[in-house]
């Protein structure tokens, strides 16, 4: 009896510490990602518009002012401001749901990270259904978005959340179809197996013309799923104030922001893992380099490569954002149902034939 209890406690504590360690790690990654990405985005957008971006708030000895790093503390200051802001709940809002919604969205993004690899070993859980899990969990956020829009009791919020739901549900189809293409070739949903296939052969983006096309289909769908410009009709500032986030402020709004940038990171890491060789270095792709160059493929270099690729993709997303005007609702649906889905379907068929040959 005693032994059973002891071993159960043992298991519980060991699992508990592991789980809390992973949780803290994921949360830190999300928070740091949001901090850095917001600064990054503001700088990128500023440079693309011939501005300078945040230049005044320095930190850690960086003084605000003329230097390039002048505004390095801006996002930290903004975070402090956000967390100390008044938390407003409108009188006519459905208070319980309104409080609940941001946490659902946050949990959706948080839980997705369980399946997201940061390197071959920096992975919370190596599922056999890895990709499927990520896709499933990243759409949990839609529930929170609809709740937020409904609970705000505000027509703009509801419009925004319905648009968001419609958009995310639609764009999951082309995204899923392009990922199925990869699964079909690699023969597994497991992240390690997919990257392993790419290590043995080549990056998936270079697998075939169809896979090349699938990369773009997936990436565009990913941009749409994260509600970023040019697909940002759910929070179109000029039409809907801020969409489903209109009535939120302070900490809850910060959670939305955190989840949004976390979703961006998820989509970019997944694209990098599935199409761009994950934690493999570019050198490993070609056989022309001598063996000694493959030291760049160690365990920790893997984290570097995967983040390098993901950050490049995040930059591309920002590049999109500051280049293209927002799509109309009908254009958005046209692009999804009449362009991306047919292309993804045809791609799938063609890849099947390609694999048979």
């Amino acid at each position, binding site marked *: 009896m005693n032994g059973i209890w002891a071993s159960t406690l043992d298991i519980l504590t060991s699992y508990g510490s592991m789980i809390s360690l992973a949780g803290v790690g994921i949360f830190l990654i999300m928070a740091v990602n949001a901090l850095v990405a917001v600064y990054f985005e503001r700088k990128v957008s500023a440079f*693309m*518009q011939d*501005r300078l971006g945040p230049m005044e708030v320095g930190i850690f000895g960086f003084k605000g*002012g003329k230097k390039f790093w002048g505004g390095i503390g801006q996002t930290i200051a903004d975070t402090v401001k956000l967390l100390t802001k008044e938390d407003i709940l409108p009188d006519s809002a459905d208070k319980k749901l309104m409080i609940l919604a941001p946490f659902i969205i946050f949990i959706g993004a948080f839980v997705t990270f369980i399946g997201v690899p940061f390197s071959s070993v920096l992975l919370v859980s190596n599922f056999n259904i890895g990709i499927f899990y990520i896709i499933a969990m990243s759409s949990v956020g839609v529930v929170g978005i609809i709740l937020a829009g409904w609970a705000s009791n505000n027509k703009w919020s509801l419009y925004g959340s319905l648009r968001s739901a419609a958009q995310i549900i639609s764009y999951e189809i082309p995204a899923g179809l392009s990922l199925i293409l990869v699964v079909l070739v690699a023969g597994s949903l497991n992240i390690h197996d997919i990257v392993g296939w790419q290590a043995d052969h080549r990056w998936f983006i270079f697998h075939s013309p169809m896979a090349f096309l699938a990369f773009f289909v997936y990436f565009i769908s990913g941009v749409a799923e994260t509600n970023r410009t040019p697909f940002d009709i759910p929070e179109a500032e000029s039409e809907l104030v801020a969409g489903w986030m209109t009535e939120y402020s302070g900490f809850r709004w910060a959670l939305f922001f955190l989840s949004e940038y976390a979703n961006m990171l998820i989509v970019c890491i997944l694209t990098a893992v599935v199409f761009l060789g994950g934690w493999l270095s570019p050198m490993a792709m070609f056989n022309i380099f001598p063996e000694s160059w493959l030291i760049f493929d160690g365990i920790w270099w893997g984290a570097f490569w995967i983040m390098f690729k993901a950050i490049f993709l995040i930059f591309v997303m920002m*590049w999109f954002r500051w*280049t*293209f005007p927002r799509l109309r609702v009908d254009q958005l649906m046209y692009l999804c149902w009449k362009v991306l889905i047919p292309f993804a379907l045809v791609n799938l068929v063609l890849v099947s034939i390609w694999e048979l040959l």
Partner: protein
Amino acid sequence: MSEYFANIFYGLKSFAEGLQLTMRHFRNRKDLVATLQYPHEKWPIEDRHIGFPLEEYNIIRSRLNVDIDDCIGCLQCERACPVDCIKIETIKPPKGSDFDCGITSNGTKMKMLVARFSIDMTECMFCNLCTFPCPEDCIYMVGGPNSSKHEIEYEYASRDRESLIFQFANPSESDVLAVGGENYLRAKAGLPPLAPEVPVKPVETVSTATEKPTPTAGEPDVKVLNGITDRMVRATAKKAFMAAARGGSDLAAIAKSIQAALEEAGKFTDEAKAVLDSLAVTQTPTPVTVNEVSSEAKPDIKTLNVLEDKMVRGMAKKIFMAESRGGKSASEMVDAILAGLKEADKLTPETEAVVRQLAPEVPVSTPKPSAPVTDFNVKVLNGIEDRMTRGLAKKAFMAAQREGKSASEIIQTVQTALSEADKLTDDVKTLLLSIGGDKA
């Protein structure tokens, strides 16, 4: 179907074009950036040429500047200012003081210390009127075009209003003390002014006036009659006053003759009576207590002026001020000053001798020298904070004084008046006691 693919192709093409455009801006950001980081960098100011030598004209009025070393404190600019944005306070060194106020660049010897010279540029309307009356040319507008002396502060911005109020004069505390500006410093610190140091004077003048009423002594009192509003009455009264004064009669007699003249003319109004009463009051014998007290000299801060070292003097004076504010007796004061100087390691035998002069003949046997009732006028009541109470107290004070009561009686009257009105708080009581000393 072909249109569908054409659209897609067109979409992709414009997609690529758009990305190229933004990337071009991103890559050439250093050359293209349009932002001027305003507080850190500014556009250069162009040289201005409008056809005549600009240096001679104050075309651009950017802000007022004062060469405070040249200011003699004549207040002409303050008077010229239509919006009263210039505030000047000067302190004249006491007679016999060897304080050197300095010499202006024009060679004028300065006769007073400019303790404060502030210009509130938020109020200034840049009319330039203050610059012309200045006899020393020390106040002027700066920022004239291409002025080599002062840069143009063309944006003239500030984060708070306070920094737009320019304080030009900044005399050191020891300098202010050296010219006898203790009250100025106290006012700056929000403290009530010290009692005047020579309390005997007013008593003496009055007594001489009563003993030997010369016309010259009576002359200033004509102004008392200005309190009469009716012009005719005032003129009659003044005429009678002058005649009586020339005749060499004392104040009471003057008052009597004025009253007679007015009654004759049928103009003896209540107002005139009140004014005459107040005229008479000045000659009522001042309370004996005052004379008693005045014989006992109050420790005088000027004694310390003998000290040569400026630091030591300042320190001693500071302690003196603090102690006198605390109502300490002279001997206590001396002890405190000596202790303070010793602590600062500045105590020389000479200094000690000087400081000891502050309380030379205080007999140890008297445990508590009676509180100096020095300046016994209504201003002593200014220490009362509550406005209502102060008003009441002052009214009672004035009434009692007019009746010619002695100091202790006046205090008592004030006290009873206040307790009747239910305003006699402990604070007021202590204040009154401190005025009246032990006699109250």
